[in-house]
């Protein structure tokens, strides 16, 4: 197995798909010759030509509208939005078009071959517009799948599954980890299942749930808790929509305590949806209220980023509060 960082794993997945499927096309702002501002599509234009990997004009609604059309025609568009913060000009194309193409036509037409890749998340001194985690907006949209990997191995397997899945997928890439996260990634083709959470650490006292870059933070909090003798079960949700209720509910039924953490603001974030479902599924097993540890209900700040974020210390406090409830 090769050592890859998260960007290389993404690049490797795209390369794999473009080699096997000559109707797979990668495009977006600066994606062509330059290989994207983060270099995720590096080398693909050289290898597969300008007609299959190219720069688009600077217009996100155009990128996704074009991708919808291309997918409806039966090709496999893999569109990049340069930052998740800039996905909103394409919101209409995603929410009203991608998500509803199949349903509104009675399955006469669909855009199931569409995949939208976009870097998301904070911790890079990016301020308001280079830090957001907008997954909840999309999670509120039946017809979409929403996927977030936590490391290079997950990124390749989940991206390959997303591209081959016959539904439009919004694939959020944790940009803070693009180069920071390095791990073993098989060179060969493999897929990881969509709609399936993964228990990454078994434990007996409390269940911790997160996704994407927040997994690392949760794991750090679990280490602090372990030093206090608290045994944490850690779950990576991996797919936000449709989400794996069963794996989470089984875990909470076992542990009786539950902390869910997300980067995005607290109010109406996906953690809230999870909390509501789990209290219904596990009500009689809960030993303490479900805790959500999230960003504050403000835009993403810059100078006070450290204070704002749902860091490992805030999660650690939530774990202790739950244990002593």
């Amino acid at each position, binding site marked *: 197995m090769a050592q890859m960082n998260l960007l290389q794993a993404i690049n490797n997945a795209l390369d794999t798909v473009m080699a096997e499927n000559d109707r797979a096309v990668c495009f977006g*702002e*600066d994606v*062509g*010759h*330059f290989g994207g*501002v983060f270099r995720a599509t590096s080398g693909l234009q050289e290898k597969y030509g300008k007609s299959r990997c*190219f*720069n688009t*004009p*600077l*217009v*996100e*609604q*155009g990128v996704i509208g074009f991708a919808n059309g291309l997918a409806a025609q039966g090709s496999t568009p893999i569109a990049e939005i340069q930052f998740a*913060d*800039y996905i*909103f*000009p394409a919101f209409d194309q995603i929410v009203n078009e991608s998500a509803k193409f199949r349903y509104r036509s009675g399955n006469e037409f669909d855009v199931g071959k569409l995949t939208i890749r976009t870097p998301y998340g904070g911790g890079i*001194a*990016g*301020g*308001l*517009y*280079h830090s957001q985690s907008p997954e909840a907006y999309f999670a509120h949209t039946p017809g979409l799948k929403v996927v977030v990997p936590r490391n290079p191995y997950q990124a390749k397997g989940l991206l390959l599954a997303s591209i081959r899945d016959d539904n439009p997928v919004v694939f959020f890439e944790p940009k803070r980890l693009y180069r920071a996260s390095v791990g073993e990634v098989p060179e060969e083709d493999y897929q990881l299942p969509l709609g399936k959470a993964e228990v990454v650490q078994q434990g007996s006292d409390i269940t911790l749930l997160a996704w994407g870059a927040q997994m690392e933070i949760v794991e750090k909090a679990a280490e602090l808790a372990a030093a206090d003798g608290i045994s944490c079960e850690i779950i990576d949700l991996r797919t936000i929509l449709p989400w794996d209720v069963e794996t989470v509910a089984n875990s909470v039924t076992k542990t009786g305590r539950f902390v869910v953490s997300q980067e995005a603001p*607290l*109010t109406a974030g996906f953690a809230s949806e999870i909390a509501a479902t789990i209290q219904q599924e596990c009500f009689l097993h809960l030993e303490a209220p479900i805790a959500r540890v999230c960003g*504050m*209900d*403000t*835009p993403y*700040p*810059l*100078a*006070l980023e*450290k*204070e*704002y974020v749902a*860091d490992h*210390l*805030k999660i650690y*406090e939530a774990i202790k509060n739950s244990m002593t409830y």
Partner: protein
Amino acid sequence: MNTDIYNESPVVHQPAFIDGHSVEIPILKILKQDGSIYENAIMPEIDRELATKTYKTLAFHRVLDERMVAAQRQGRISFYMAALGEEAASVGGAAGLKDQDMIMAQYREQGALMFRGFSLENFMNQMFSNEQDLGKGRQMPIHYGSNELNYMTISSPLGTQIPQAAGYAYGQKMQGLDAVTICYFGEGAASEGDFHAGLNMAAVHQSPVIFFCRNNGYAISTPSDEQYVGNGIASRGVGYGMKTLRIDGNDILAVIAAVQLAREYAVKEGKPVLIEAMSYRLGAHSTSDDPSGYRTREEEAKWQEHDPILRMKNWMLAQGWWDEVQETALFEKLRDEVLAAVKVSEKIDKPPVEDLITDVYDQAPPLLQGQLEQLKVHIKKYPDAYPFTAGRIK
């Protein structure tokens, strides 16, 4: 219904396309690189005082950019965007306006703000996101704004200011003010849907707005020939039925002349104008970018020869309004001032933790106040983890 235009059209009976490039667009040039003026050129209204202020602003711009790119490399600030080679567009724009005119910029127009008198300290405090930043340390470096100076705070999402400018200018007109709005954007941002929405809104509703496109050849790595295939951005103004002008963006006199003319028209007729200024982004897109991955040194070298600041200097020398002694003294003084200001600003405290929840709304709702209280308790428990704020929490 506006059908007259079709009734007046010539009628043909064989199908034939009109070409996508059939509108020929001249380019306004007034000042040559050697500092002389083109024959027959009509000069903008500019006296020694305005010229000197304009030139000094250009010099300040260049020095600040140079120093702050270096400061970013030294790790003193997180990010910077220079406007090397295209400073005339923003400085000349402001020089052609009145102080009451609103400026809505994209992000590479710090020159207009300098012209308006934003202090060196204000620039620094924004870049160091300290507690004296007017924006309260919330946005990345170079996202300046000043209500007092009629310079709308920069927003990173591209193109959003374009339809906003149409609305802002509509309000100015409705109030009967002697004021217009200038709206800057790049040729890349002109691809956004908001560009088309904004131009059409302004044209239909007759807003006195000057749309000023800085066509600098690139949007990050994307060259303009992969951005559009029409005749630049100017041809679109014609499409929206708008007065349009294309100028040499490295010619400060052409910029001032164009903006003065546009302003006069916008105020008198109450209608929008589109200016497309042709230039070149000589530096990297930002400090996060390295242009060697997508363009050649030769291409850059060609544009070095069109330096707008040197061009203005040559004219100032020829006018007898400037000399080499003044030149050396000015640049030396500016460099010293900028260095000194860096040292002051980087020592000023970050904003207080309370600033996290202000300005989300006019007043923080109870839920948010509760989150702040909770945060303060947490910080007091782990003061070492939050060094910027822990010492100041009561």
